[in-house]
């Protein structure tokens, strides 16, 4: 008996999903925007899969008043691991599409879910840790504080807004395409079973 393979459309969709996922390298995942009376033009920080951009240098200088850690790329191993996990996601996806192995597809889909969960949970953990690891000798002492993950939050003279960036939506898009691949594959399976019956 020949092994059951994914339908062609499912395989194309998986390949597409894998390619969409890797394009997340080209867009920031998350955006922080800080506004204060002295900064009517605002300060921006963008978090990418593999790097930080924006006025991080200035934000760090401001953060020292309350004893927040200086944010650097070196501080977070995620900037090395996330790119690797993303490359794996794409290569694995392409392999699934190439072989059309149903079993590999299920594993790959599961990996995508874990990848997304890991990213979001880890991000929240890092925010919590950032707000709770303050220099006890800072000039201004603050009690535990967690920067917003979604939406706005006032902190001292700053209004901080946090929102997903285009890179995040790219990954969501990639996942939706993967979901479509799953539906197509699942329906093809159902149709095959019906035909067999």
């Amino acid at each position, binding site marked *: 008996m020949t092994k059951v393979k994914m339908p062609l459309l499912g395989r194309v969709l998986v390949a597409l999903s894998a390619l969409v996922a890797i394009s997340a390298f080209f867009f920031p995942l998350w955006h922080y925007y800080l506004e204060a009376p002295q900064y009517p033009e605002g300060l921006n920080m963008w978090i990418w899969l593999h790097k930080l951009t924006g*006025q991080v*240098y*200035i934000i760090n*200088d401001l953060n*020292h*008043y309350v004893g927040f850690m200086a944010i650097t790329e070196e501080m977070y191993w995620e900037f090395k691991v996330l790119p690797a996990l993303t490359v794996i996601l794409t290569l694995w996806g392409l392999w699934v599409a190439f072989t059309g192995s149903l079993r590999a597809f299920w594993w790959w889909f599961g990996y995508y879910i874990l990848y997304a969960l890991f990213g979001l949970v880890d991000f929240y953990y890092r925010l919590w840790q950032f707000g709770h690891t303050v220099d006890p000798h800072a*000039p201004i002492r603050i009690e535990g504080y967690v920067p917003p993950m979604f939406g706005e939050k006032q902190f001292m003279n700053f209004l901080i807004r946090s929102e997903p960036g285009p890179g995040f939506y790219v990954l969501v898009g990639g996942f939706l395409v993967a979901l479509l691949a799953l539906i197509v594959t699942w329906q093809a399976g159902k149709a095959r079973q019906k035909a067999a019956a």
Partner: protein
Amino acid sequence: MNKGRVRLAVLLALVAALSFVAVGARKVATKLAKDAAQKVYVPPGEYDEFYAFLSGGFNGQLSVVGLPSGRTLKNIAVFSVNPRNGYGFSPETKPLLMTSHGFVAWDDTHHPELSMTNGVPDGRWIFINANNTPRIARVDLKYMETAEIIEIPNSAGNHASSFVTYNTEYVTAGTRFSVPIPQRDIPIDQYKGNFKGTLSFIRVDPETGRMSLAFQILVPGYDYDLAHCGKGPSKDWCFFTSYNTEEAHTLLEINASQHDKDFIAAVNWKRAEECVKEGKYEVWNTPYAHNWYDEKKHMAFSEIVKEEKVIKPEQCPGVIYFLPTPKSPHGVDVSPDGRFIVGNGKLSATMAVFSFEKMLKAIEEKKFAGDAYGIPVLDYDSVVHHHVKNVCLGPLHTESDGKGYAYTTCFISSEIVKWKWETGEIVDRIPVYYSVGHLMIPGGDSAKPWGKYVLAMNKITKDRYLPTGPELNQSAQLIDITGDKMQLLLDFPTLGEPHYAQGIPASLIKDKQAKIYNLKENEHPYATKSEKEVKVVRKGNEVHVYMTAIRSHFVPDNIEGVKVGDTVYFHVTNLEQDWDIPHGFAVYGDDDPNILIMPGQTLTLVWKPEKPGVYPFYCTDFCSALHQEMQGYVRVSPADANPPMIWRGGGKEGKWIVE
């Protein structure tokens, strides 16, 4: 009494009478536009429509003023020291003020002119002259700081300067106080024939703006007063006024006011270029300084150049002609289309408007009335286009609105007169308070004026503002020229004594303003780019402190090991990269002013402690909520002591490096 004295007495009586009338009639004459307040009001948070750059005269500076509000935005030290930021004191800026006479920290700034492309201000640089020790400076309009200064050799009283040619090929310089050239020791009463002037052309590199002395034209010993270069058809020419064609050397007030006509020198700089190419010049060796600021190294450099090309008019026929001009003309101005040249004869009530076309024709047809020291003098009637008759008393300067009208200031009758370039017809006049010198319409001396306002820069202030003792600031007045009638909008005091100004729409400059110096690009040899690089180095009696400043601490902030007899160099790098977060640095007992270090910049304060003790230093610019804490100490030990050589700061301790 000789004829000259009678004339002078009559003139002085007239001046006195008119001043009296002008002051007496003020309350009646001040007719404000009804909506004046609205026209000059710039709501909080909004910007002025124009940048204006006003020279500061005897303060040696250049003011940046917003129009129409009249608010002073900045005062740029050019030929002056600046206690505000240490300009002229810090080793980084001192070389800018070097001359062949050594360090000259003051001058008299007169005529700023913006760089131009096709006769229109392009907002890249502004040039300004030093009258006393002849120099020209280039101010970079990205940083709004002095970028370069070149000394003008073989000159004195650099007044006919710094006017720019059509595409900023050259900046002019001219000798107002003729002197023996080259300088030598001779009796002053041997002035005639022995004293000379030069008209100099300073080449401007089109990419970098870097200046170099291209050539100097040796001219008779008159007083070359002002200049303007041509546009459009006349773009290859520059025009210089002269007075004292009498060549008087004492009591010039009378002795230089005898001739009915003096000259405008018309210089064909393209012809001069040809002569230089053909080798028709002499190489002279009067030394002069050339100083420039390296914006990557955050440091100025100075060199002495000892070679200049001097063109003698007889060796380069066609390079210069004289236009007879009534009487002791002051300003010379060219219409936006480049067709007309007006000589503002300050002792004549009639202004002569010359036609450039007629001038070329007269030259071609050799219509000369004679020559002066071999320079052809053109026949007056062959070059005059028309006369503006009874224009006023004491016409000094003219600017244009780009709609065919000219505006002339009248010092004696204290007014601005509006007339038509083409016909000389006078269409309007407005009193100004008091005794106006220069005037400025944004782009008003260019090929494309933005003719919305005229700014009158007045020499006498008197009762215009709350009195401030005997010394008063000069006064400027903003006048609306959009309608048929000129309307006074605003009075505001200015810094120093503005002699001329330039204006340009803010939109052409504001978005390219530098906000910080990029720390990564800082190539200052003593830069300290992070707190990890902080060190203190002793080299004999020199102590170099590689210091950082960031909100709100210096590293190091404790220094021990300095001894009396040491020279301490605090090389302070501001680690900030945020807009408008300068840090200042001053140390107790230092005889230099503080340094004000912009974000990403490195500046040096030099200190020679004279007595043992512990001396505080601190940040002088309120930088943050913890600014008051931004302080530190230097311990100074006796010369024969052997103190530990250590530093503390940023939670660390270090030992000095001894070289």
